[in-house]
């Protein structure tokens, strides 16, 4: 019961230094500790390659964020103030540097999968990214890790058509906005309905605009929705859309906060759903782009279910029996 694929885990020991103020803030270092513990379990079934990420270079960041925003972000971190923009966006002195390392993880993951497309790549990063917009931090995201990776993949490796699937419980407003007018990056998100959930965006009626019309797909689910709704969304909407789009590469916004035990959303997924998603996504990547697939952590805050869901997802990606 094992596989010849290698599992590449990209992370960095400095992520633990990103402080979110304690108290009730859910985005804590313990999340990555939980994930790291689960790697042992995966090691029984496949070879694990662990890598520390490198900082993303500035010009890759500037594809997605503007110069002034980056300066303000850095200044705010260094100034000793405890949050950036909104009290949810807690930060500390080192956060800017750590965010560069988080943004760099996806880029390193892309380099590795381009070298060995059969390998399974997962980037366990913090702070997360999908709410961060061009000039705005939101929902404890500062740099949009997935968006930065998508543009990197297009420019460095000339993979023109990128599909992004974001199954975090919350809509990735930042990732959608980054590619709103792009016909070459297809942003797909399944999330809790925006009327009832942060960040209040991601209505089914949003399809992109200008040249990007048709390259955004939002699938909002009502609070209480579970595995069946997600499975249906996948087979009826997401797979057919990707079969038409034919991506050259795929990026996954892997958030595990849709789990029923996770308080940060009203969704009620089980951990085994993530195994299903891992399998489906891996099969799609093999079908369309020779396995060029990188998954990047977004949310997931209930520690035991985060760990279990992460294991299930990775087992699914590895197509373990």
């Amino acid at each position, binding site marked *: 019961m094992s596989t010849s694929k290698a599992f590449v885990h990209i992370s960095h020991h400095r992520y633990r230094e990103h402080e979110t103020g304690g108290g009730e803030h859910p985005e804590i270092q313990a999340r990555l500790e939980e994930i790291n513990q689960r790697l042992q379990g995966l090691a029984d079934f496949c070879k694990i390659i662990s890598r520390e990420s490198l900082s993303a270079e500035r010009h890759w960041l500037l594809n997605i964020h503007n110069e002034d925003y980056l300066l303000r972000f850095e200044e705010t971190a260094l100034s000793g103030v405890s949050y950036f923009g909104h009290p949810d966006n807690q930060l500390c002195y080192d956060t800017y540097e750590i965010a560069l390392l988080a943004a760099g993880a996806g880029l390193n993951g892309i380099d590795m999968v381009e070298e060995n497309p059969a390998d399974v790549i997962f980037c366990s990063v913090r702070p997360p990214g999908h709410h961060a917009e061009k000039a705005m931090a939101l929902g404890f995201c500062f740099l949009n890790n997935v968006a930065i990776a998508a543009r990197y993949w297009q420019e460095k490796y000339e993979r023109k058509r990128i599909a992004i699937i974001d199954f975090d419980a919350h809509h990735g407003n930042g990732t959608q906005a980054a590619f709103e007018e792009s016909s070459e990056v297809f942003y797909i998100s399944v999330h809790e309905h925006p009327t009832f959930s942060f960040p*209040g965006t991601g209505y089914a009626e949003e399809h992109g605009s200008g040249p990007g019309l048709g390259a955004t797909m939002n699938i909002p689910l009502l609070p209480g929705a579970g595995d069946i709704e997600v499975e249906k969304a996948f087979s009826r909407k997401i797979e057919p859309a990707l079969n038409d789009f034919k991506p050259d590469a795929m990026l996954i916004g892997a958030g595990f906060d849709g789990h029923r035990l996770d308080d940060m959303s009203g969704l009620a997924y089980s951990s085994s759903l993530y195994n299903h998603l891992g399998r489906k996504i891996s099969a799609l990547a093999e079908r369309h782009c020779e396995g060029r697939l990188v998954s990047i952590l977004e949310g997931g805050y209930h520690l035991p279910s985060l760990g279990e869901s992460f294991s299930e997802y990775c087992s699914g990606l590895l197509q373990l029996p």
Partner: protein
Amino acid sequence: MFVSNFMSSPVKTVGPETLVSEAREIMTAGKFRHLPVTDNNDLLLGIITDRDIRSALPSALMGENKKSEDLPGIATLPVSRIMTKVVTSLSVESTLDDALILFGENKVGALPVIDEENRLVGILAVRDLLKAYKELFGLGERGSSLIAVRDDNKPKPLTRLTEVLEARQVPFTRLIRTDTDEGGNLIYIRVHTYNLSAIHHALAEAGFEPIAPILN
């Protein structure tokens, strides 16, 4: 809350002697369906709509010969012959509520806005009204969502509720309290925070039962 904040202005208009064919071209080019008719002093004389023109033109199902006989005649009609002369309209002092009432009562897609001398100053389409309410309710404001709680019927509910939110530094931008006969009052709040669960708990502790959004 005033229509003047949301109306389109200045408005494309035509004079009463403008030909129907020209009016049709103007509407097609501008992609709108309502064309106010005014005199040289902006006095509102009537309104001509895309539907008025389509009703006046021969049916697309008629034979070719019949069409070419009728067309020159209609094309040279002035708009004054087919426009609506008694126009439902808003005044510069009208509010969005007025617009909502008028759109509900009349089958029109747009309402001209006139001053005390009946001069045209703008036009408010149904679409403009929808946009106004969308902004009013904060639809799509990034980082926000709507939560609903039940009023506990004790004194000063809004003071106590806002104290809970302010103590947690949670910005909120809309507060709607409804007044229902059965079941008690509901309070809707558009809050700007990630941690909705903590807000629900805090409000519940303060006596406000959260209403779960469940489809009946």
